């Protein structure tokens, strides 16, 4: 299947609140000497000044699917545009979809799960969110769209870092981490980020779900790139109840309505219990769950099972055999709004083999 996947055109979704620097990043991607051709889908009424041969204006029409679930929405215009673009296969290597500053990324992502024809030809590579270091903290308070975009992101480009002090930068980063500790975060000025950090991420590729650990950062060390992992293993499972506390110099916040929840078990799971539980969970709580991911060890199964989801949509597969000596540990993460934490924890506990 690897070959088939690689033939599909990768699609990067570029999101971010108004003025964060989406167009700057887009122009950087397009102007870099990478030898690749991009088809760019922008909002028809969006910012101008994008220099590219293949640029398509989109209407951002969000359609509800008639399958009974209210949060199952797709971008109808995107279905049509991707179908049209596929007539020009070979004329471009990848697609970038720039959303408006107020857009919810979910319908864009769900388009790639729901539509059969889109799935056949294209694959969602990653949701990249550009955030304004100076104003994001304010937007997280007054703009639910901004919070959605942070929560949904696989990659966060924290831009305009030159406009804030190191302390303010750490502050906004801690606010981001309170919502989404799993995204790759890059601090930038004028969106100066390596293209390999935003493109070809394979964030929705089941084969590339390797680990599910929060991205830890050290506060105030003054480096531009903070995306390196640290060896120590914090258990950052949001079991703290107070609003903020210090941990290794980086403040930990708890966002009022958007959280991440991480679950783990060293004992194998019972697949006959886990699968129905997960499906019921996303069916009933899918509106609250923005993203979910998991690496699972089932009893009587020598393969790692991986899954990922967007709201109510799930996809999962056996990934590979567990390696000798590899800890057969199950990990799940949920990012969402007002997650029913105790209910999820209890449900998960019931799926663990005695």
């Amino acid at each position: 299947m690897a070959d088939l996947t690689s033939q599909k055109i990768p699609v990067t979704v570029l999101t971010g609140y108004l003025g964060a620097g989406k167009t700057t990043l887009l122009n950087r991607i397009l102007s870099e000497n990478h030898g690749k051709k991009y088809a760019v889908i922008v909002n028809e009424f969006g910012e101008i000044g994008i220099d590219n041969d293949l640029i398509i204006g989109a209407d951002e029409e969000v359609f509800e699917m008639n399958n009974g679930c209210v949060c199952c929405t797709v971008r109808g215009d995107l279905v049509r545009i991707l179908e049209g673009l596929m007539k020009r296969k070979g004329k471009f290597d990848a697609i970038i979809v720039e959303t408006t500053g107020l857009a919810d990324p979910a319908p864009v992502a769900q388009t790639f799960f729901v539509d059969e024809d889109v799935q056949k030809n294209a694959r969602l590579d990653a949701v990249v969110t550009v955030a304004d270091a100076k104003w994001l903290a304010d937007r997280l308070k007054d703009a639910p769209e901004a919070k959605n975009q942070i929560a949904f992101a696989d990659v966060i480009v924290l831009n305009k870092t030159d406009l804030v002090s190191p302390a303010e930068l750490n502050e906004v980063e801690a606010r981001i981490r309170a919502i989404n500790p799993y995204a790759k975060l890059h601090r930038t000025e004028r969106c100066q980020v390596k293209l390999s950090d935003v493109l070809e991420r394979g964030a929705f590729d089941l084969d590339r779900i390797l680990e599910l650990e929060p991205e830890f950062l050290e506060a105030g060390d003054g480096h531009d790139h903070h995306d390196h992992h640290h060896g120590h293993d914090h258990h950052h499972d949001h079991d703290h109840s107070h609003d903020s506390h210090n941990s290794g110099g980086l403040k930990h916040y708890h966002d009022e309505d958007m959280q991440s929840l991480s679950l783990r078990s060293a004992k194998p799971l019972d697949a006959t219990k886990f699968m129905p539980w997960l499906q019921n969970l996303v069916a009933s709580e899918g509106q609250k769950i923005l993203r979910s991911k998991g690496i699972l060890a089932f009893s009587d199964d020598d393969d790692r099972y991986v899954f990922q989801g967007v709201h109510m949509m799930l996809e999962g597969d056996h990934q590979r055999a567990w390696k000798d000596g590899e800890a057969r540990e199950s990990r799940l993460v949920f990012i969402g709004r007002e997650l029913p934490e105790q209910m999820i924890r209890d449900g998960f506990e019931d799926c663990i083999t005695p």
Partner: protein
Amino acid sequence: MKEFDPGDNAASIVSVTDRVRPLSIGMPVTAVHFLGSQAAFVGAEETVALVNTAGEISPVAVHGGGILCVASDGTRVVTGGDDGRLVATDAKGEVTLLATDAKRRWIDTVALHPEGAVAWSAGKTAFVRSGRAEEKSFAMPSTVGGLAFAPKGLRLAVAHYNGVTLWFPNMTANPEFLEWAGSHLGAVFSPDNRFLVTTMHEPSLHGWRLADNRHMRMTGYPGRVRSMSWSAGGKALATSGADAVIMWPFASKDGPMGKEPAMLAPLQARVSMVACHPKQDIFAAGYSDGTILMVRLNDGAEILVRKNGTPPVTALAWNAKGTLLAFAAEDGDAGLLEL
């Protein structure tokens, strides 16, 4: 279920594969229409290839990019492109520019009226130009998914999100709105003008009896319906989208209401194209594995036109007399069958 295995089953079905004139169009093909005895194969981009009965191929440059939609009235094929142009190509290969979008938007859909009117859409705007009259446009509530002219009068069905707008371009009356939740992507009128059927983004069809706007839900498809064709006289509507051709009965005044569709020519592959014979109760069906069958409606008897083993069949058409069948797979491997 059965599978056409050229080795074992070749003898068990009547085959006319040896009578097909093979063609290599040399480009991905998305549609075919007959202009008299010439087959016009529509490429995925830039080119329409005219092919005469001797198998001679004449490519005609029509667009400076992708070809997004096509319609034909038997004398011309009209194509809309991502170059914002609407272009007519006739049997001699003469190209006429019909319209250019002012903002160079994609021309997403096109429809032709038997008396010469042409309709097209770009984004949320539908346009109509009838024979001599000036161009008219109409803004829809959402992007136009499909267009169809009614067989009588100048009436245009515009499919979009949550329903269909019936627009009489030459009348001042407000357009009629037929509501049904969901995204409607294609539309056809029955030849007797009594029914309107749309294909939906979900794998289903929706229909209205126009006399009383009664709804007809036609569901159960595993995949989206992309190809529809009326049988001779409009007695049934043949559709793609399943691993058999789904035929909805339209002969009675209630159409398919309360009736089961016929399922003909099942294979272990998805039907990608259907084309009913213009005069006889026969249809041709193309499949996702490249197979093409001719099927008799009354008893389901099958004749093999093309064996499996290629990309999906994307183009299939009869000429008006019903003496020629043209087809192509996605990769441009094509053929002509003279009956």
